[in-house]
């Protein structure tokens, strides 16, 4: 691989880097960065990159690749392709596979499947065995096999005493526990946000407080047990953000992520009963969206994560109440973030890169790729201004359950580079 990007804008807030230069990559290594012309041989691909930006490779700390167990929805191979096509060089897969990621054998199986990939695939393991909320998983062993954090994602650890034990057990190694915050008793049989609209649509609602009660409880436990590391997955309500903001102000080690759909799509879209708008947590109100954006701006929300959740067409193309929760997101995440946050003047490009590439790695104590000569190239190259229309048939994920089909978005990934591999994005 030899590729030269001419006049590309290099952007990495972590290095205080923002300049236009020529960038030469040879065999996966950043061979030269120069503001003057670089002479290359005729085997080198030359890209005129006046409109493009190179940033550290994007990282999504919350995706479902469904393997092992649900390979008809997504596989590690198709999931990684989808990630690369969306500009991501790193992902963390969730443990709600079958079998669950709760023992080293499963971790090793997934590692084997994911090796030699452009995308660095890391794993989150379950807090409790089989995600049943009862017996703790062997966290020390799992971490030694490379697990980067723990979560029962898909369900909450509802038993307060189990959550307490999990914090205590994790404290010996200072592991991060993440929570899918949902009081399941309050959300039984839900299909959408509890709002004026779901009252009218005759759908069982998912009230905001079901999320907020668990977030508040967990923060109280984390503080009570000596300021433990705690992360709220896919935060979605104004109240939950308020609780996290107050906790951060007290100096607790709480962090959180938001999905692109929770800052771009309001719950009134559900009036169409389109099951590609059904997910958990559900789409919230415009007021909640405003709160997500404010929290992204003031740093209450640390990062953007997709909760990429593929489901096949035959599962989704049914009565709304019977459809499973979840949407795919990897290939629209950057564009949706640029469209709804950067182009609406809520966040700068540097802030977008922080939320999508830098902060998630820092939370997980992973090295942030630096754009420097001699380093291996771990980069996302994108055009922040190109307008395009989403066509779900072009997505590389195995499932096509996106709510953004036919949406006009502004900003598009072009190249994803990592592990001496380059992917040209097709969208």
């Amino acid at each position, binding site marked *: 691989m030899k590729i030269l990007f001419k006049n590309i804008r290099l952007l990495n807030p972590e290095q205080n880097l923002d300049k236009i230069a020529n960038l030469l990559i040879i065999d996966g290594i950043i061979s030269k960065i120069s503001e003057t012309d670089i002479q290359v041989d005729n085997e080198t691909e030359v890209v005129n990159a006046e409109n493009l930006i190179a940033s550290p490779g994007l990282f999504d700390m919350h995706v479902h690749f469904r393997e092992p167990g649900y390979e008809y929805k997504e596989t590690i191979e198709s999931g990684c392709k989808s990630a690369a096509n969306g500009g991501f060089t790193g992902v963390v897969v969730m443990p709600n596979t079958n079998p669950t990621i709760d023992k080293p054998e499963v971790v090793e199986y997934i590692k084997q499947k994911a090796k030699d990939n452009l995308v660095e695939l890391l794993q989150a393991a379950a807090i409790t065995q089989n995600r049943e909320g009862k017996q703790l998983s062997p966290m020390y062993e799992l971490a030694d096999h490379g697990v980067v954090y723990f979560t029962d994602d898909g369900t909450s650890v509802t038993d307060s005493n189990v959550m307490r034990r999990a914090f205590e057990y994790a404290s010996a190694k200072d592991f991060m526990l993440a929570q899918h915050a949902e009081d399941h008793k309050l959300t039984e049989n839900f299909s959408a946000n509890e709002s004026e609209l779901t*009252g*009218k649509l*005759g*759908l069982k609602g998912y009230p905001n407080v079901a999320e907020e009660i668990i977030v508040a409880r967990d923060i109280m436990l984390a503080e009570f047990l000596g300021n433990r590391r705690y992360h709220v997955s896919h935060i979605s309500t104004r109240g939950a953000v308020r609780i996290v903001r107050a906790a951060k102000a007290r100096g607790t080690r709480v962090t959180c992520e938001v999905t692109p759909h929770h800052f771009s799509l309001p719950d009134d879209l559900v009036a169409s009963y389109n099951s590609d708008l059904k997910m958990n947590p559900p789409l919230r109100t415009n007021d909640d969206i405003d709160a997500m954006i404010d929290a992204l701006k003031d740093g209450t929300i640390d990062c953007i994560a997709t909760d990429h959740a593929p489901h096949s067409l035959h599962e989704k*193309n*049914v009565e709304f109440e019977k459809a499973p929760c979840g949407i795919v997101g990897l290939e629209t995440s950057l564009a949706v973030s640029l469209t709804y946050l950067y182009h609406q003047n809520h966040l700068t490009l540097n802030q977008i890169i922080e939320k999508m590439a830098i902060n998630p790695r820092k939370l997980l104590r992973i090295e942030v790729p630096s754009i420097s000569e001699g380093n291996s190239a771990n980069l996302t190259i994108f055009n922040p201004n190109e307008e395009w229309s989403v066509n779900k048939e072009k997505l590389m994920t195995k499932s096509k359950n996106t709510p953004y089909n036919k949406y006009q978005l502004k900003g598009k990934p072009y190249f994803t580079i990592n592990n001496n591999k380059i992917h040209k994005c097709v969208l």
Partner: protein
Amino acid sequence: MLSKPYLLSSDDLTKEDIYKVFEKASFFQENYAPGVKFNDLKGVTVCLAFFENSTRTKLSFELAAKRLSADSFSFQSSSSSLSKGESLIDTLRTIEAMGVQIYVVRHNCSGSPNFLQQNTDGIVINAGDGKHEHPTQALLDSYTLYKKFGKLEGLKVAIVGDILHSRVARSNVNVLNTLGVEVAVCSPGTLVPRHIDNWKVKMIPNVDDAVEWSDAVMVLRLQRERMESGLLPTMREFSNYYGINKTHFEKKPDLVLLHPGPVNYGIELDYDVSNYPNVLIETQVTHGVFTRMALLSLLGSRFSK
């Protein structure tokens, strides 16, 4: 013709639409006699797709279609391949392949008629979907009030009982509001939607006050499951505090009462009052056939001749 080519929810009906239905229903009511057939739907095939059990709505639509000379057939999910695991969309495609133009759909999932309409070129009529809507019930109820009172603007109607789970209530609130009727609801706290304040209805906590305020009450059926699922402490308390009984009629003899049926006598309504002249439950059933004839005729006209 109506403003929308289908009827999925009461939002599809404008005031003009509703009065067109009333006018046509009156015509059928005046001109129907045993043995008389109208040709409005001649050559049109109507499928009554009932994915949830129903007696009166299904019979009512069936008779309406037959009196309009439609070819109609019906199935209930228990007797169809849905019980064998066939998906709703496959069932629709199978029926569609047989050449059907109008689907009358009842389903226990809210929004199913919308889902079906998005996947067919035919016409879908919602005959009750989950806890969402039952727009033809609202049409026949408001037609009944129209026939009884002659004028609907300014009329006061109280809906009493389980609002939260009632598709009849949702459709009626909307249709009555469209027609300029003042609507109130009267219900225990666990059986009202949390955002009822935005429904353009008055809340009357006490059933005696609701009766006193209103020209007509609509009493809803209370499902026994509501108690089992912990929403109500006891049936006795519900019927003491929200049931309609003889004393209400003694205080207000001209009170008009509607109920979508079937009635749980002794719970939401006393059996003693069932044969009072202003208790219009049977009239509603009769009117149901004529309003459904009117609706089928108005929506189906694009297929006939």
